[in-house]
């Protein structure tokens, strides 16, 4: 067996500082957005008592879901014993933690009372899946950190396999937990589906891998280090499988909804009459996030081009954000069915008058908060990558 060498990320220091500076500026802007939001109150956002969770939650859920998926590569190496993936594992674990922290940060900063974070950490209502998620997230960070240690420290190597399996199992539970946040909302038609949890798991595989592929190729390009084609090709095939599976579950979700008559109105809203949500579904979720990347990665010539593979990964991410947007915002915009057989013709609190959906347009402040969380995670990376990074060539 060849030895794997983890080397420093030997990128030119100018480039390194440039990246950090750009990221710092963006997060500073996002920071101001948060201050503005917390100082004035949430009225500066597009969120309301009708659309309760908005763009910050879309980004946060996307990052958290992607976090567990980013661990794919490490899991393949340790749980499924594929040696070729082992050198890529540290980046995978690091990225997973960074994505999760980014997502959680957004959630916390969006709270009405973020200064009460300690209350959330010390007072648990164990009936709440949300409270369980707080535990799951903390546990995930701890387990993955330990796992990283077993990879990088030879003395700890004997725990490598066990830690890998633990991290793998934990992240499946974590994504199930994230999906269940919505699955428990039985009163809202879009969320009352058992298929939500497995769907989230499959989505996480795709989102996480796509982000991983982008980060991997960027880091290697920036440091002028060659990244083997074989690695990228393996990953893109895997991405294709995940995207296909995701499409399949999307199909199943909507088919099961169409099967029950009570959900027909909701399905008509998402698939046909929902305006922005319908557009995001067909163009964002299905076309950009599904069919196009699928066609690219399995195309005989495009699928061999590194830039096309890169583009496919970006599409999966854009499509992923669109998917979560449709689930979270679309699911709330559709009026809750309170009075079957009746039409609401007037209301002092909206309530879907004549079946009308709630309106929502994100404000700059909340969009910045969402993007800021993503940048936060990128900032963690170069700093840590300067210490450890995988070199796939030593393994192939």
């Amino acid at each position, binding site marked *: 067996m060849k030895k794997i060498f983890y080397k420093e990320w030997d990128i030119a220091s100018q480039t390194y500082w440039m990246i950090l500076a750009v990221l710092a500026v963006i997060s500073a802007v996002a920071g101001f957005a948060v201050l503005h939001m917390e100082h004035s109150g949430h009225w500066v956002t597009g969120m309301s*008592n009708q659309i309760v969770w908005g763009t910050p939650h879309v980004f946060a859920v996307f990052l958290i879901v992607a976090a567990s998926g980013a661990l794919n590569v490490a899991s393949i190496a340790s749980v499924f014993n594929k040696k070729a993936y082992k050198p890529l594992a540290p980046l995978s674990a690091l990225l997973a933690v960074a994505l999760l922290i980014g997502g959680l940060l957004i959630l916390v900063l969006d709270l009405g009372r973020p200064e009460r974070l300690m209350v959330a950490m010390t007072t648990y209502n164990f009936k709440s899946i949300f*409270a369980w998620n707080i535990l799951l997230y903390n546990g995930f960070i701890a387990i993955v950190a330990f796992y990283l240690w077993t990879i990088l420290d030879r003395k700890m190597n004997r725990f490598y396999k066990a830690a890998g399996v633990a991290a793998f199992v934990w992240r499946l539970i974590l994504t199930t937990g994230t999906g269940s946040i919505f699955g*428990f909302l039985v*009163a809202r038609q879009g969320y009352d589906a058992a298929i939500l949890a497995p769907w989230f798991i499959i989505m996480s595989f795709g989102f996480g891998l796509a982000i991983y592929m982008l980060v991997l190729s960027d880091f290697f390009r920036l440091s002028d280090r060659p990244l083997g084609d074989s690695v990228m090709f393996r990953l893109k095939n895997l991405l294709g499988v995940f995207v296909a599976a995701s499409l399949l579950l999307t199909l199943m979700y909507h088919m099961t909804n169409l099967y029950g008559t009570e959900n027909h109105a909701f399905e008509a809203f998402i698939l046909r009459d929902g305006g922005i949500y319908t557009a995001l579904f067909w163009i964002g979720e299905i076309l950009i996030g599904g069919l196009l990347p699928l066609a690219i990665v399995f195309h005989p010539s495009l699928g061999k081009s590194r830039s096309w593979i890169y583009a496919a990964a970006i599409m999966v991410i854009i499509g992923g954000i669109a998917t979560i947007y449709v689930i979270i915002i679309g699911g709330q915009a559709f009026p809750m069915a309170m009075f079957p057989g*009746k039409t609401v*013709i007037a209301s*002092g609190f909206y309530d879907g008058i004549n079946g009308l959906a709630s309106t929502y347009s994100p404000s700059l402040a909340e969009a910045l908060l969402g993007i800021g969380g993503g940048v936060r995670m990128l900032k963690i990376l170069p700093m840590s990558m300067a210490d450890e990074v995988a070199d796939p060539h030593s393994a192939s």
Partner: protein
Amino acid sequence: MKTTDQTDHKRRDFLKTGVAASAVTLAPGIVMHTAEAAPRDKAVDSSVRWGMLVDTFKCASGCDSCVQACNEENGLEAYSMPEGADPEKWDQQRPKWMRNVTLKDNLSGRISNLPLMCQHCENPPCADVCPTGASFRRADGIVMVDRHTCIGCRYCMMACPYKARSFIHENVDIKPELAPRGKGCVESCNFCVHRLDDGETSTACQDACPENAIIFGDLNDPNSEVSKALAEYPSVQIRADLRLNTGVRYSGI
């Protein structure tokens, strides 16, 4: 680490007073109920379950006396549109504990009016999902928010099937004494709990309704006006399919 359940622990914490049950055990198996509300120095218990019946036949179109009374009683007027806000958006962000809804039957075309507010579920989804336990159900059936532990995550608003809750999106001009509150927390109808805790037995909306369409009282007391009305007229729970056993019932829809 502290766990919370949905009993009246919090209220006890607040009151920090001696606990006296308002149901007295006279002899094994024989319990004497006191139908009136427990005064503030007693812990609430489940001998009372507060509830309401809305008679939509009586509820008049165009009237919003109950909503006005609620706004006034609970200080909802203290929230004014922040400077620079978009009026249309603000209208969706301002808190409302109670609203009027007008329905039209799809088949018969019959129009009915009703006030809609927190239904004080016996199995409240809002309390189930609340991560900190800030949403809780008192032993006497009132569901409310502990504003000291609410972190403003709005998960309860996502879970409530009646959209009964409001998030406070803005700074509050004055601090009303009856219901202390502030930006960043969630609130909703609490059956005018301050009145009940003072020993009163009516809500502001009930008092305000010119048509007597709202009957409020103790569901556990078979002789209360609300129990008698419930026994007499057919009534329904909104979204009965969710089996929440709501404390607010409607007749005529």
